[in-house]
């Protein structure tokens, strides 16, 4: 699997995701600077976490207008898979690659903690190594992860099975207790209609080694390798 990780001014988890990709593929992904609208062909594009452009104006709003994102949209339309994590999810939502928006956390504070996620679907490039209904534990670290969509959009997202992960309690119960940010329907991650783009707030790249936060996120990258190699 050849992967490219985008780098915007202010990205800061590009190294984490590159490390996770190297761990499962044995090779470093290409790091693509935001000004580079003409990067090499790859099997996977990763939009990483961080504070692109300092989160000024609105999280992800400026990065969504960068030359590289115009190219990402073009390639995504051709079916190139895009994994958008945290600030990457915000950028992808701003760029129109994914429905809905990420608002300020309901409690108005940054939150860094392990959360439990219920896998909603194993029928995707990103989740094929998980079982539907499986509960996994990986961390979140964000101030604006409160997913929201208007009623009509939300109905479509739910009806089409576009929800990838929901926040849940350790036993899998989907209720307010496991929701770290107030996301509507406890949504932690979603697909586009073709399930070739996935955005999620939690950080699977920070859960790939047992000693360093657990390894429940590793299967996501292994599944991608399997599907894209």
């Amino acid at each position, binding site marked *: 699997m050849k992967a490219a990780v985008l780098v915007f*001014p*202010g990205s*800061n*988890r590009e*190294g*984490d995701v590159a*490390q*996770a990709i190297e761990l499962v593929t044995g090779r470093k992904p290409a790091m693509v600077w935001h000004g580079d609208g003409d990067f090499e062909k790859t099997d996977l594009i990763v939009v990483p976490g*961080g*504070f692109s*452009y*300092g*989160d*000024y104006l609105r999280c992800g709003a400026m990065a969504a207008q960068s030359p590289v994102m115009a190219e990402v949209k073009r390639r995504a339309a051709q079916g190139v898979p895009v994994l958008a994590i945290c600030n990457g999810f915000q950028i992808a939502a701003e760029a129109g690659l994914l429905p809905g928006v990420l608002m300020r956390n309901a409690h108005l*504070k*940054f*939150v*860094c*903690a392990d959360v439990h996620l219920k896998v909603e679907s194993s029928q995707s490039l990103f989740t094929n190594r998980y079982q539907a209904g499986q509960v996994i534990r990986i*961390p979140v*670290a964000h*101030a604006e992860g409160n997913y929201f969509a208007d009623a009509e959009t939300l109905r479509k997202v739910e009806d089409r099975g576009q929800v990838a992960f929901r926040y849940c309690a350790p036993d899998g119960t989907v209720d307010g207790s496991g929701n770290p940010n107030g996301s509507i329907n406890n949504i932690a991650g979603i697909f586009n209609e073709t399930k070739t783009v996935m955005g999620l707030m939690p*950080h699977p*790249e*920070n859960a*790939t*080694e047992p*000693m*360093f*936060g657990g390894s429940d996120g590793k299967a996501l990258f292994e599944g991608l390798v399997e599907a894209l190699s």
Partner: protein
Amino acid sequence: MTVAAEKNPPVKLPNELTITPQIVAEHGLAPDEYQRVLSIMGRTPTMVELGIFSAMWSEHCSYKSSKVWLKKLPTSAPWVIQGPGENAGVIDIGDGQAAIFKMESHNHPSYIEPYQGAATGVGGILRDVFTMGARPVANLNALRFGDPSHPKTRHLVSGVVAGIGGYGNCMGIPTVGGETNFHAAYNGNILVNAMTVGIAPTDRIFYAAAAGIGNPLVYVGSKTGRDGIHGATMASTEFSEDSEEKRPTVQVGDPFVEKLLLEACLELMATDAIVAIQDMGAAGLTSSSFEMAAKGGLGVIVELDKVPMRETGMNPYELMLSESQERMLIVLKPGREELARKIFEKWELDFAVIGHLTDTERMVLSWHGDIVGNIPIPPLVTEAPMYERPWTLTPLPPVLDAAKVPAPRDYKASLLTLMGCPDLASKAWIWHQYDHLIMGNTAIRPQDGDAALVRVPGGHKGLAMTSDCTPRYVQAHPETGGRQAVAEAWRNITATGARPLAVTDNMNFGNPTKPEIMGQFAGAIMGMAEACKTLDFPVVSGNVSLYNETEGRPILPTPTIGAVGVIEDIAKAVGSRLSKAGLALVLLGETQGWLGQSLYLRELCGREEGAPPPVDLAVERRNGDFVRGEILGGRIAACHDLSDGGLLVGLAEMCLAGGTGVTMKLPAGAGAAHGFLYGEDQGRYLAATDDGNALLAAAAAAGVPATLLGYAGGQALVVEGLLTLPLAELRAVHEAWLPTYMNSAA
């Protein structure tokens, strides 16, 4: 006329303002200090020159009251690459890698403007570390707030925590540890001490000493604005009721720009373009240009009109004294300007050649072609005021007779009171607002161990790091308190299995012109120096913050110790989580039941009295070396040092961290139960092991007192005959206090 003045003939400069005694006083210069200025200059200084003397001779920049004492601290060891005097300390951690670290205070700004004060404190310490070539890998912070019932405390906690998180999270550096205390002595003067640890190759460390006459002086980073003018001077005076009017002296941070600056500097450092580099921290362009030239024994010409400016109408005085953030000064090798410019332009940062080095040993400032300042550099250092202020040591208070401290009527209630008190309650509300996981190397998270443990990227080594001080001990007896702060930091590193290597000290004290305050400082240094020597734990960097008083009321003396240790194989490290039933709990070290200055005495008896627990450094070393050996030998599964609150609190913390209960009984000869369970005797560890008898035998062989207390299992903390406390109930109380406090209306 002094010798210095003869060597440096006066340069006549027109003065825009008459320098009156009032203007001198407003610059924080004492009349005799101003006389020195006159004799060095041989004439009346211009306003910008006066401002430079004021900043450079401020307590904050000159260490004029503390220098004579700081010299008593041990600063060398075979693994020390750079001790105090540079931007940060540097130690060798093997494999061609160095750990670069320092702790620094941002107390006064954080009290006036908590968010920006704390945020720029983090920004400043990060720059101190990456200016030396290191990529920062971890942040820690030590916070002291006033009484929770004080009307300002909630607002200050909220702002400081948000500021630290706002800066560190955006920079992408994990905030992995620290400490938070509350005491009424900090009501009008909180402490915000921030520490950064970075990693660099030992052969790629950058220093501040300028070299190469004619080499260009380059300014990079943010533009200069009017914020923070005279911050260093403000940080060197006492507070009064009107301190909030000083809000404009607080800097405003932009972590996004600092992130760009970090990446741009590291990119430039990977080339061979840099001769010297220095961040612009306290006293901004003044101290950075001055220190670079002074350390290199050179002169410098600064063309101030070339400094990138954020606003129009700025003058030389403002430019030299602004503390605008996210700026660096670099001396480049000749001909490397374009290479460097391209890197900074890529990162969309300002880049300007603003001067060059000379052989004159003078700092010459020009403004659109006119000379506006011309100061001889060496006498500003050699003739800087240095004070041996009178000092009175705090006598050792009488030892409190434990028999005169009442036992609790209800042990369960007493443990819940302690575990829910502000100093011991869970600080999860704070550290969940800090990204402590970014970079993917955090092996021991906050609350899961005595020290944070972070993997050194690209290998199997780990760095353990901690920050410690028990101010109530220092207040009671500074010498013991200084010794204890160092010993506890050493113990916390040891409890993970790492080898303690070196210390950064952040000395927070009151007004040094009062003999009893200077005596606290002196006593603390004596205790620290002795502990650092005995434990082979040199001080490699630090910071002094004096005048922490409001309306004449001083803070508790607080010499915060930041420390770093290394473990060769991170897989061998342990935390304090008790996560397996059947483990034997062994108490290592001697327990007398020392209740003087204990949290039990303060929280349950309402008394703050007696001598603090003595620290026997030889015993400390023997016990710690034994514990570390057992951990590295794989014979200890979890370990916790015993400090605030004593044995029962330590045990409760281990149970909560790992989600496993314990049943223990008081050993024969334990003495009074409350002394045994809540005494704060030093040099002790609680170890969980698969083979209790083997550990007891090994301890006996090493001459370390050891007692088998009981076994892990179940979902309650049980002390036979005294208490049975379900973990759920303990956890609820432990975790409730801070969020409840923060969410309640002011």
